[in-house]
């Protein structure tokens, strides 16, 4: 079967299945289980209506249970076992993690990522949104800034490998250095501590576009009159931006910030592609990857740690997003 046909059939089966499910389930409920007849039809109708929401929720709950709850519980369970899953070792994997200096490096680096990347992306996105909103070629600038969003993390890393390449003929950084008269090229990826920040630059480069697009929409939603009132009140452009405009979109800023934070805690591709976790650039997801298929017990333990860290950010993110929608 051609892939196109395959896709069509899948869509047909999926949509048809959904329609069929709801139709049949409702029919069953209304005709067979609680028919509006018998001794007390009114009561049957209200009972059917009480059950109906669950009918609609059931497929989603089943899917979430199968693909979300089960893996979480399963992973946790697996993390209590040893390397080959043969023997139960309790929290052994977790205590091993705590004792592993590599894990602590990863944790520390991840902390840096979480502090720097969302802050930098959001800030740069905010500035870009404001600056591009008022100029004629703003939309072109916006598209350019947004473009990296369309590139996969691995693709972006490859591009930046060229930027950071250890050769003046290839690497942008070293080309600039050579232009300034420095003789020997440097490998920026190997500079201890700072190399982590060079890796972060890649994700910031990607995420600034996202922040800019969302924040630009939010900035446009600010009523012009409040800005005009601030002009009449004598505020200068900086005061207008930081004291009148930004406070009006704090909700959106928080949503953008936390969304990027969650992403940061999951991205392993950049580190994996750029350094493979070497030169002290390890972060939790790449640390996890380095154990996957070698010691699944420990890998799942790391996964669980990551989940515990993401969870509160996520809850906050959802709460804020809901508040924004109201």
């Amino acid at each position, binding site marked *: 079967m051609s892939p196109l046909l395959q896709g069509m059939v899948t869509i047909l089966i999926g949509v048809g299945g959904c329609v069929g499910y709801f139709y049949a389930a409702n029919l069953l409920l209304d005709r067979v289980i609680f028919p509006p007849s018998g001794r007390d039809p009114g009561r049957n109708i209200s009972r059917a209506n009480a059950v109906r929401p669950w009918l609609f929720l059931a497929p989603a709950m089943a899917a979430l249970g199968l693909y979300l709850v089960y893996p979480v519980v399963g992973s946790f369970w697996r993390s209590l076992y040893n390397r080959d899953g043969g023997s139960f070792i309790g929290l052994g994997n977790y205590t091993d993690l705590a004792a592993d200096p590599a894990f602590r490096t990863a944790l520390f680096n991840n902390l840096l990522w979480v502090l720097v990347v969302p802050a930098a992306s959001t800030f740069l996105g905010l500035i870009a949104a404001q600056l591009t909103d008022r100029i004629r070629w703003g939309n072109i600038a916006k598209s350019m800034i947004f473009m990296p969003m369309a590139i996969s993390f691995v693709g972006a890393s490859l591009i930046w490998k060229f930027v950071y390449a250890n050769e003046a003929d290839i690497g942008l950084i070293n080309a600039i250095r050579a232009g300034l008269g420095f003789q020997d090229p440097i490998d920026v990826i190997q500079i201890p501590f700072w190399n982590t920040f060079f890796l972060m630059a890649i994700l910031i480069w990607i995420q600034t576009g996202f922040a800019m697009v969302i924040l630009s929409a939010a900035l446009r939603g600010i009523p012009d009159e409040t800005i005009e009132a601030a*002009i009449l009140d004598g*505020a200068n452009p900086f005061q207008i931006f930081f004291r009148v405009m930004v406070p009006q979109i704090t909700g959106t800023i928080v949503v953008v910030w936390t969304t990027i934070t969650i992403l940061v805690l999951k991205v392993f591709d950049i580190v994996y592609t750029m350094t493979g976790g070497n030169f002290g650039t390890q972060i939790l997801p790449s640390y996890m990857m380095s154990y996957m298929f070698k010691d699944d017990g420990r890998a799942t333990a790391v996964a669980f740690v990551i989940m515990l860290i993401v969870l509160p950010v996520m809850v906050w993110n959802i709460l804020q997003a809901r508040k924004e929608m109201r």
Partner: protein
Amino acid sequence: MAGLTLSGVGKSYGAVEVLKGIDLEIETGELVVFVGPSGCGKSTLLRMIAGLERITAGTLTIDGVRVNDVPPAQRGIAMVFQSYALYPHMSVRDNMAFALKIAGRSRDEIDAAVTRAARRLQLEPYLDRLPKALSGGQRQRVAIGRAIVRDPKVYLFDEPLSNLDAALRVATRIEIAQLKEAMPDSTMIYVTHDQVEAMTLASRIVVLADKGVAQVGPPLELYEKPRSEFVAQFIGSPAMNLLEGAISGTGETTEVRLAAGGGTIASKVPTEPGDKGRKVRVGIRPEDMEATDGEDYAFEGRVEILEALGEVTQLYFERADPEADPVIAKLAGVHAGLRGKTLRMTADPGRVHLFAGGRSLLWR
């Protein structure tokens, strides 16, 4: 000295001219109301005075100083927007204090000014609330308070009451009138499309139409001596009736023979012998129409619709041409039996207006 003068002021957006050749002198302490149909440029003119729109022609002076290129905050004006434009993230207190904080005033000074304004506007209990926790009327008072705190030379209001419901509109209108009375030295410019607001608040009304000023004057002058058909129909509700005719007698009192039949009607508008035979339109306000049994009348028609409002009864006469505005009469008291009757209407000569070519013959 004039508090504010506009000479030859105009505004174009690219090739589109919105306002042109506006000359106006506003004295210190006046409350001038700009009225005009929607889209005639009232807001644009106000925003040019505020400095939110660039003046593309002419000069604007405040207190004798040309301010065309002076930034808004230094013009000594404060503006109250239709949508209130409160800063949603700031408490009422901070909303009012913002301008003074920006200006770098001392805390004591700011507190004193905010407290004074809040007391005057009965906003003291709400000082620590956010705007979203206030009713529409309270928000509008905060917007006014934000203006008062700055103690400007000129207050600008852009349809400040149009977002309020009818009852609140009346109450706030009276508050603004009282505010003006309490601040006799401040100049206020008030934009509205509501003629009741214009008539009740204004010391002078500026009617804007056709990119310019149609007439300026005290409210009753505009009502009694409109310069043009446009002003005559714009001020007063329902609008003035206009009837075709030709001048048949001139002098202190002018006689007009009506085109639609009937006799002649007299008007106190004086005319010269040369005017004899001139085509004119006779303007009679609905409230000036009175029924007559005589042979000389301005209009004869069958009452098609009758609106009994208790205090007055409005009669809509049948039209020959369905496109034309109906002739309307507004009689005091209750006249329930008049529907379907054919009436002859006339008016006191002192209340009959004459227009030729759209211009009033009184203002030649």
